[in-house]
């Protein structure tokens, strides 16, 4: 029986980045008047997302749509511009570093670039010892080392490799060590930010299996950020599709892959190359992704959507329950005009 409890939840999460530089760069003279213009990249525009305990929620979307920003904001690496993030019902987005420490043990992150995510000046065991020693200062060094050994074995790394530096190890092994570092503090929830995109295909499968095993053994919950749809189909229990900083559609993997509702999801899934049978024709989208500095009004997808009507240009669609599991943000589906 699966526990449907909500572990992590974001509500109306907004994140804007200021890209206009310093004060002097913002000032310009227009029509003889001094004007200050601030350019904001609107990376997240009201993200409502719930991660249930024990599931793998895959966050998909094209590059630049804000997937990574969601992960980093949830982990507290970026402060949200507005909105709430809660963990097991407790709000965590406004906590200070020291009050956040208990949550740091529960929530960990795995990064995309295994090269950059390990400090080149530290040995493997020093990297792994750091988090567990920080969170358990009273434990003896022998106990901590035992723990390091145990976790290294569980991710398939020979504990003898502890004395090596990260540049002496291959990419796949390095990613195993990144995973081990996240597992050191026995977390419940892991944000995996494209953990396999930088690896070659044979290694991708190994790392994916490792993540799957870790989930089974430790009862982990993942927020799995990726753009690889075949991985999502294989690995995810639920999928959230993002476009320009908004969630278009959330639902069970089988449901979304079987019958996508949102026009963007339909277009995205039709882009998966399939062998043999030509079941669904490729949906071509008009135009290009608008810039996140100058967001379209209303539905962010309206200027590329084949079904768009007047209301799409003015009103922002909310995520609405379509079935017990799936939610869609689309006026067309809400008013069932297609």
């Amino acid at each position, binding site marked *: 029986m699966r526990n449907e409890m909500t572990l992590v939840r974001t509500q109306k999460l907004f994140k804007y980045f200021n890209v206009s530089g310093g004060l002097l760069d913002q000032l310009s003279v227009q029509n003889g008047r001094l004007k200050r213009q601030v350019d904001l990249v609107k990376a997240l525009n009201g993200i409502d997302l719930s991660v249930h305990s024990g599931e793998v929620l895959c966050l998909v979307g094209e590059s630049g749509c804000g997937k990574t920003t969601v992960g980093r904001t949830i982990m507290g690496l970026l402060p949200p511009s507005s909105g709430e993030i809660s963990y097991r019902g407790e709000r965590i987005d406004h906590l200070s570093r020291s009050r956040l420490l208990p949550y740091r043990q529960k929530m960990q992150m795995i990064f*995309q670039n295994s090269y*950059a995510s390990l*400090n080149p*000046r530290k040995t493997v065991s020093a990297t792994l010892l*750091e988090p567990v020693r920080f969170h358990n200062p009273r434990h003896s060094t022998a106990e901590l080392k035992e723990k390091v050994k145990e976790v290294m074995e569980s991710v398939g790394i020979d504990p003898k490799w502890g004395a090596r530096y990260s540049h002496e190890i291959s990419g796949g092994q390095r990613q195993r060590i990144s995973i081990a570092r996240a597992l050191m*503090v026995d977390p419940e929830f892991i944000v995996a930010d494209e953990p396999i995109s930088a690896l070659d295909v044979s290694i991708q499968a190994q790392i994916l299996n490792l993540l799957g095993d870790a989930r089974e053994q430790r009862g982990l919950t993942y927020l799995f950020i990726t753009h690889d749809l075949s991985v999502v189909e294989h690995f995810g229990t639920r999928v959230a599709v993002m476009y320009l900083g908004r969630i278009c559609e959330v639902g069970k993997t089988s449901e979304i892959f079987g019958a996508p509702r949102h026009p963007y999801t339909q277009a995205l899934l039709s882009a998966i190359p399939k062998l043999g049978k030509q079941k669904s024709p490729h949906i071509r989208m008009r135009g290009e992704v608008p810039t996140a500095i100058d967001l379209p009004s209303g539905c962010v997808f309206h200027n590329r959507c084949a079904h768009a009507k007047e209301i799409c240009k003015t009103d922002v669609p909310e995520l609405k329950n379509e079935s017990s599991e799936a939610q869609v943000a689309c006026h067309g589906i809400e008013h069932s005009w297609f």
Partner: protein
Amino acid sequence: MTEQVLLVRRNIWHRVQNSAMYYSFVHNRTAMVSAAIVFTYVLLAVLAPLIAPYNPWDLTQFDIMDSEIPPIGSVEADSRFMLGTDAMGRDMLSAMLYGTGISILIGVFATCLQLVLGVSIGLIAGYFGGRLDSFLMRVADIQLSFTTLMVAIVVLALFQATVGLRLYEEFAIVAIVLVIGLAEWPQYARTVRACVLAAKKQEYVDAARVIGLHPFTIIYRHILPNTFSPLLVISTVQVANAIITEASLSFLGLGMPVTKPSLGSLIQNGFHYVFSGSWWITTLPAITLVILIVAINLLGDWLRDVLNPKIYN
């Protein structure tokens, strides 16, 4: 226990021998020769009280009758004074051995002060960014717009005028170290800040933040170690710069006093006698200084090439 220590030592030596730096050092004659020269200078300076024939700081040992004796090789040379004597009858060899020590001491301590100040300011400015960063970097710009020599001349002249010559002679070395150290910290601060900005974007810093480490722990354990290579290069150049600055100040009469001369004050001291034929009093310390500075700079050049993976020659 002892075996373990030995094993660790052997490991470190093993690692050094296997490093690219060691290989490059052994295969680069310029680096080996300049390192040997610098090492010899330091050794001679440290051992000066033991190997110098006279104590150049003890005025009672001078005899005015021994003044301006040329170095051996000349007709009037005296076997007691291998490199001759100056106008006070002071043995040049002893004075130069002690003077080298003072010059190196000032160079090293002034650089240490710059290092501590510049690295802390650079780390803080780079890591925390924003207004603090802008403020600290503008202060650095202002500091850089005054040349070190100008600041040093003003400060030391004021210091000399207020405390009087006798006290000045006693505290000259401290004053010079402070002035050179305080005037040149932006060199370090700027480089370290640039390194921090690059390192801060790396995912291992994000990983450390996700662990929940304190910002200062992250700076100290994760960012600082990755700035060591450029620091090493700047430090060699800065030691040479500080020695030259001190020599220039001494030449202007604002550096080390004649009673406790550095290489710079020896050059200045002998400069008056060049045209009367006593060339060695100024030339010998000058050559000593030039060789030291060139050797340090060549060592710095080699370090820069070795630690920069983009340049392979």
